[in-house]
């Protein structure tokens, strides 16, 4: 019994050291630069028809999007982590959890400003502004 416990203790200690090593190596490999500017930095210009929004690096790549009424916006998750698209307030947008490669689309018929977040990571935010065609 004691020998078995000792073996477990040794295994735990070795795994602990391995965990420290892997974490340290990854800390050393961490990126140093801020992510590149996204399209949210560009001036708002109304798009129409089918509009794509990528979900990448825990952000909506078109954070402030302007489309004309009748446009269909498609969000595609490019992260390895799951995300979702959920309205803040009203229930216009309500996707399921999107795995890598999954997409969610919504057609905006009425003008207005539609704020949304990732329902899993609430700090991920975006806005779709719909203008008359």
């Amino acid at each position, binding site marked *: *019994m*004691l020998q078995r*416990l000792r073996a*477990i*203790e040794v295994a*735990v*200690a070795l*795994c*602990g*050291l*391995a*965990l*420290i090593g*892997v*974490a*340290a190596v*990854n*800390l050393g490999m*961490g*990126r140093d630069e*801020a*992510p590149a500017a996204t399209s949210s930095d560009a001036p708002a210009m109304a798009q129409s028809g089918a509009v794509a929004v990528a979900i*990448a*690096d*825990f*952000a909506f790549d078109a954070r402030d999007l302007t489309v004309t009424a009748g446009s269909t916006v498609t969000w595609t998750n490019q*992260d*390895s*982590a*799951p995300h979702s698209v959920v309205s803040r307030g009203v229930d216009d947008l309500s996707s399921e959890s999107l795995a890598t490669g999954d997409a969610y689309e919504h057609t905006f018929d009425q003008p207005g400003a539609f704020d949304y977040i990732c*329902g*899993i*990571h*609430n*700090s991920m935010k975006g806005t779709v502004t719909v203008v008359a065609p």
Partner: protein
Amino acid sequence: MSTVSTARSLRTIVALLLLLGGLVHLRLYLDGYREVPDIRLGRSFLLNAAASGAAAVAVVLWRNRLSLLAGAAVAAGTLGAFAVSRTDSGIFGFSEKGLQPSPEALVALVVEVLAVAVAAWLLLRSPADDASDERVGTSAL
């Protein structure tokens, strides 16, 4: 037939729980949290993994109250960070909802709560209990 002290067995359980919590955080980092725009968030997951690993090693190698206290502190700190990450302000501006990501959030929550509970139980025992357990453990050698 040899007898192993209860305290020593429970210490090993605390170490295993810490190890599991650290592995969950390392996996979350590798599975996507390294992509969070604020790199401090990803690094905090790595630091959690390293601290959990170090605490697990300390708990099994140094059978004293200080190592247990360190293990409990790491687990309690992880629980505190989990709670803060569920607020609107989040950690480094990053917040999550409920028990997402699933099942990692639930696994980490259960593991850290158990680690704190078992470590606290061991810490709150009287020194006489420790001495008694050590004698049992020694006699088993």
